[in-house]
C-alpha cells in the first residue's frame, strides 16, 4: 500500500523505541487512577477473604508482635523506653516499621507475581508497587486506631506536635515506595534479588530504633546510623506522637535526605527499567 497524503490529526499515541531515562509520566498515572484504586482494592479484598480473621488481622498482627516484644525486650531484657511503658513505646515504632516492611517485601515480588498482566496488557507499571504501598497504608491506618486506643489506655495525651504526624507518615510512605520501586525493578531483572529482600528487612529492623530508643546508639555512630531512612521515620513518629526521643536534628535531616534520594532515584530507575519488564519478567 502506497502512502498517500493524509490530512490526519495528530496521532493519539506513537509507539517508539525507548529513549533516555526520566521520571514517570505522572499525568498518565493520574489517568490510570481508577486502576490504582482497583488494584489496591483487590489486594485488600483478597487478603481479607483469605485470612481466617479477615480485617481483624490488621489489628492483631502488630498487637501480638508488640506483646512478644514487650515480654522479651521490655521485661526480660529490660530495654529502656524513654520513661513510657514499653508496650506503647514499641507499638509506636512498630506501626511505621510494619508499613515499610510489608510494602517492601510484597512490592519486591509484585511485578514477577503479576507476570501474566505484564505480558498482555498495558498500563503504567508503577501502578503495581504503588497499589501495594497503598494497601499497606490502609493496614497502617487501621492499626493506628489501636495505637490511639493504647494511648487512651495508658493515659498518655498526644503532644502538641501531633500535627506533624502526617509529615512523618508521608516520609514513611516515601521510603516504602522508594525502596519498593528499587526492589521490584531489580527483582524482575535479577531474580535472586527476591531472596535477599526478607533478609535485608530483618537486618534493617535491628538498625532501626523500633525495639530500642535512638538514645541507645552511641553518639559517634549516630550520624552513620541515620543513613537508614527508616531511623528518621520511626524517631520522628515517636517524637510527634509521644514526645520522646530526639526531635528533628542532624540525624533526622540525613534520614530525610536519604529518603528523598531513594524515592527520586527509585522513580527514575523503575521508569528506566520498565522497558525491559515485559521481555524479562
Amino acid at each position: 500500500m502506497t502512502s498517500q497524503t493524509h490530512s490526519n490529526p495528530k496521532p493519539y499515541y506513537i509507539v517508539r523505541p525507548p529513549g533516555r531515562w526520566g521520571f514517570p509520566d505522572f499525568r498518565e498515572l493520574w489517568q490510570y487512577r481508577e486502576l490504582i484504586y482497583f488494584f489496591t482494592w483487590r489486594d485488600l479484598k483478597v487478603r481479607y477473604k483469605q485470612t481466617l480473621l479477615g480485617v481483624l488481622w490488621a489489628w492483631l498482627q502488630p498487637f501480638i508482635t508488640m506483646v512478644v516484644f514487650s515480654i522479651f525486650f521490655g521485661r526480660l531484657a529490660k530495654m529502656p523506653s524513654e520513661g513510657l511503658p514499653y508496650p506503647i513505646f514499641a507499638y509506636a515504632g512498630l506501626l511505621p516499621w510494619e508499613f515499610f516492611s510489608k510494602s517492601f517485601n510484597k512490592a519486591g515480588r509484585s511485578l514477577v507475581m503479576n507476570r501474566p498482566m505484564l505480558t498482555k496488557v498495558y498500563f503504567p507499571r508503577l501502578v503495581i508497587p504503588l497499589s501495594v504501598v497503598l494497601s499497606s497504608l490502609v493496614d497502617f491506618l487501621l492499626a493506628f486506631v489501636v495505637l490511639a486506643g493504647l494511648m487512651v489506655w495508658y493515659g498518655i495525651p498526644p503532644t502538641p506536635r501531633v500535627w506533624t504526624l502526617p509529615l512523618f507518615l508521608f516520609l514513611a510512605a516515601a521510603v516504602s515506595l522508594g525502596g519498593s520501586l528499587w526492589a521490584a525493578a531489580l527483582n524482575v531483572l535479577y531474580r535472586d534479588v527476591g531472596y535477599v529482600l526478607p533478609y535485608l528487612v530483618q537486618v534493617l529492623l535491628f538498625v532501626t530504633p523500633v525495639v530500642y530508643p535512638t538514645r541507645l546508639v552511641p553518639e559517634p555512630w549516630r550520624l552513620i546510623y541515620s543513613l537508614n531512612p527508616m531511623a528518621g521515620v520511626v524517631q520522628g513518629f515517636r517524637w510527634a506522637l509521644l514526645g520522646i526521643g530526639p526531635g528533628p536534628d542532624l540525624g533526622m535531616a540525613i534520614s530525610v535526605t536519604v529518603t528523598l534520594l531513594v524515592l527520586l532515584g527509585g522513580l527514575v530507575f523503575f521508569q528506566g527499567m520498565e522497558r525491559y519488564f515485559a521481555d524479562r519478567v
Partner: protein
Amino acid sequence: MALAIRVVGLSKQYRIGETRGKVEYRTLRDSLGRLFRRSRHATIWALRDVSFEIPQGQVVGIIGHNGAGKSTLLKILSRVTRPTEGYAELYGRVGSLLEVGTGFHPELTGRENIYLNGAILGMTRAEIDRKFDEIVAFAEVEKFIDTPVKFYSSGMYLRLAFAVAAHLEPEILLVDEVLAVGDAAFQRKCLGKMGDVAREGRTVLFVSHNMSAILHLTQRTLVLQKGRVAFDGPTPDAVDFYLASGFRRAGERRWDQEEDPTWDPAGPFRPLALRVRDAQGRVTDTVRADEAFAVEWEYALEKPLRGLRVGIYLLTTRGEYVLTSFDVDDLDMYRTWEERPAGHYLSRVHIPGHWLNEGRYILSVNASTFGVRTYFHEENALSFRVDPIGAVGAQWPERRVGVLRPLLRWEILRNA
C-alpha cells in the same frame, strides 16, 4: 482516507532466551560475572522492518507460522513491549485482547472480577456500570455472578472473561487468537461478536491460525514470515500465499531449529519432517483424486515415551475439519506401541483414492498423551491439493460439493 495505524520500519530484537514462553531470567551473580567477560548474546529479530498502513474501519488479518512475529507485532502495538527500531502511529484508543481473563483472581466473585478485569483493559468504572448487565447476559452466568470465580467451571470462566473483553469499545481493536480457546459453541459466539465489532466500523487487527475466521472476518491480510511482511493484500490471496509457502518444499515440511525460535529442542519429542507421498512414493503437493496417497511424519524420541499418540488433523481451507487420526487409533497398534523406546520414527497414514474431493487441504499435526501432555502441536503444518484427474463421476465435467467424493457401491434394481 483517515488512517488508524501507520507502522514504519518496526523491528524488535530479542536475546535468545527471551522469546515466547521461555524466559531465562538472569541473576545478579551471573551478570556481575559477565561484566568481566566480554561475551555477546545470541540475538534474534522477531520483527524486521515491518511497515504498513491501515485506514480507519478496516478489518485486517495477520497470519504466519509460529515464530513469524505476529504476537510480537500485537504486543508492540499494545505497548506491552517496546520496539528496538522504527515506530508506529496510533490514531485512536487501542484495546488489546491478547488473552482473556487477564487479572482475574479466583477469590473474587464474578461481579468483582468484571470490574477488575474491565479496569485492567482500560474501561472506566462508569463504563463498566453501564455495560454490566450486558456482560453478564453475554456470559450467561447470572446465577453465579456473586460466587467466587474459583468455583466456576472452565467454560463459565472463559465466557465471563471473554464477555468483559468483548464489551471493550476502543477505536482500534487488536485481537490475538483468543478465539482458540473454548468449545465450538463458545467459539461461534466469539466470532459472532467479532463480526459485530467489525461491522460497527472499528479498526481491527486480528491474528489467528483459523483460516476460516480470517476469511470470514477480514478484507485484507498481512502474512508475516520470519519477522517480515511477506504479503499484504486481499485476504483470499494472502491465505493462498500462506498455505503455499513457508519453510517447505512442495509436499514437505521440515523442522529446523534455527528457523523456528519457539520450538523447544529440549523436548523428548522432536519433529523432523512431514511429507505427502503419492501412490508412486514421490514427495509431492498434489495427488490424484483416484489414487491413494500417504502422509508421513518423521520424528525422533529422545527418551522412551508411554502412551504417546502421533497424528494428523485434516482440514479444508475453509477451516472445516475433515478428520482426526492418530497412529495408534487401532487397538492392536495401540497395544503394540504403548511404550515407544527412544529412537528415530516414521508414522505413515494411508488415505484411500476415490475419497477426498478435489481442492486444497491443510494438515495440522499433534503428538500427545491423552489428558496428560501435548508434546508438539502445529497448525497448518503442510498443505496439499487433490487434483480432480480420474475423480468419481469424471464422465461429467462438474464440480461436486462436499468434502468427500467417494466411489460408493450402488445397486440398481428393476422390475423385470
